[in-house]
């Protein structure tokens, strides 16, 4: 039997979704023009599936900082910080991150995925328990495979279920570490963090919050759901990414925990991978400063969320329940979802197609992400185009007509 034979079912499934003429998981953006525009297949498209929440990928200061750092310090670090040493830039970014989050310690990872992988797998040992939300991101699921701890899942965003599971563990030795996300990446819903923090205190557990989608998006200072919910003091480790609101790539962890720096020589996904290049560190350092000093982007983002969410809601779509920069449009079946997604792209709108089993609902989703730089025009176009295509597939009803004769 050939080595990759066991993927036959996956190969068939992938072929089936590519039947529309293009592989939804292999879209080529020929040229990205701005945070909200690109050329695909020679056609201009509106980007609404890039997680570029604050539109910082084209911020002139971030670009200038990245270019200057590349010229001054070269294109890459060519190794890990443990083996090759840290650049002053890495240290500066870590100081800035600690300052931004008002924490004692900060650690930079090469991706957000690795930040979750490293922190979660390292902080809980063989006698400990990791208690994770059932809708956790793949990086959290992969972290538990790397971890030696016993892993228990609680029902998505169900604080009472978490409480029940911690109760079952009461009296057992071993640390209990709860892992949740600020904003869940598929449906855009937020963890009930105030209740979770209360449960964490009551059971003497630890709390890790992944603010990947909420950094720069929630909280007066953009520190995420912890700040927004007023429970930062209960969060032992904040994990995050530079690849969404900060417009680059990389991951972070901040904490007030004593001996935090031991993780630098214990956490394998930190130790055994090349550190971020100077250009990325420089653009992220600048982007963090933009988030810290300019809250207008966050305000614009949420105004745009209102426009797109309300527009789709009024059109009759079934959406994720909580308004967020991730707007999930529920669709009935895979074939319709793939067709609608493809027709949208042809009509100049790029969103993400999410198919089971990668969706928590077991049904397909069109996952739209909103950007602070989307113009009202662009958002209205997205609503109009999506409405027309969905109507032609019978997913939503025809426009309401006046009933007056």
């Amino acid at each position, binding site marked *: 039997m050939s080595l990759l034979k066991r993927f036959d079912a996956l190969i068939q499934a992938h072929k089936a979704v590519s039947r529309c003429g293009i592989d939804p998981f292999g879209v080529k953006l020929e040229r990205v023009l701005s945070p909200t525009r690109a050329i695909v297949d020679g056609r201009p498209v509106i980007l609404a599936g890039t997680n570029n929440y604050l539109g910082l990928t084209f911020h002139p200061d971030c670009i200038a900082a990245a270019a200057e750092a590349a010229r001054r310090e070269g294109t890459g670090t060519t190794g890990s910080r443990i083996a090759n040493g840290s650049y002053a830039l890495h240290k500066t970014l870590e100081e800035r991150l600690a300052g931004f989050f008002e924490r004692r310690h900060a650690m930079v990872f090469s991706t957000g995925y690795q930040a979750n992988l490293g922190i979660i797998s390292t902080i809980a040992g063989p006698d400990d328990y990791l208690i994770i939300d059932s809708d956790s991101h793949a990086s959290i699921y992969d972290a538990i495979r790397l971890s030696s701890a*016993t892993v228990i899942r609680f029902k998505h965003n169900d604080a009472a279920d978490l409480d029940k599971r911690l109760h*079952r563990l009461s009296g057992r030795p071993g640390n209990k570490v709860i892992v949740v996300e600020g904003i869940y990446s598929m449906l855009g819903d937020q963890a009930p963090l105030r209740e979770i923090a209360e449960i964490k205190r009551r059971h003497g557990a630890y709390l890790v919050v992944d603010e990947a989608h909420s950094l720069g998006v929630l909280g007066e200072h953009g520190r995420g759901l912890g700040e927004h919910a007023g429970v930062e003091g209960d969060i032992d480790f904040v994990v995050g990414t530079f690849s969404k609101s900060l417009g680059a790539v990389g991951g972070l962890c901040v904490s007030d925990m004593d001996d935090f720096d031991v993780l630098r020589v214990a956490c394998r996904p930190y130790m055994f991978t090349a550190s971020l290049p100077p250009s990325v560190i420089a653009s992220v350092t600048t982007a963090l400063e933009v988030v810290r000093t300019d809250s207008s982007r966050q305000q614009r983002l949420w105004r745009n969320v209102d426009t797109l969410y309300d527009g789709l809601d009024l059109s009759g779509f079934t959406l994720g329940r909580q308004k967020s920069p991730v707007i999930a449009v529920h669709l009935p079946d895979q074939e319709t979802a793939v067709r609608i997604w493809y027709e949208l792209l042809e009509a100049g709108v790029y969103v993400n197609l999410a198919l089971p*089993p990668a969706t928590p609902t077991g049904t397909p989703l069109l996952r739209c992400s909103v950007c602070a730089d989307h113009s009202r025009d662009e958002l209205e176009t997205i609503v109009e185009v999506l409405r027309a295509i969905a109507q032609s597939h019978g997913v939503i009803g025809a426009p309401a007509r006046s009933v007056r004769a």
Partner: protein
Amino acid sequence: MLEPHNKTGVPIRRNTDIMKDLDVDSLAVMDFIMNLEDLFDISIPLNAMAEIRTVEDVAEVVLKMKTNENGL
């Protein structure tokens, strides 16, 4: 509890392989496990899930969790 997920309609026995014989996807297995956890007031660690293939495996894990002092 398993019957609603059964896509092939084959009768469910002790040695039925849940994913293979009933064509139940991993998401539905998780739902089924969570319902079991509620029913028996236990938590089945994800670490134990790798060993579960058949209906009998499920019963053994539940029994272990319910009786063994290592049960959760």
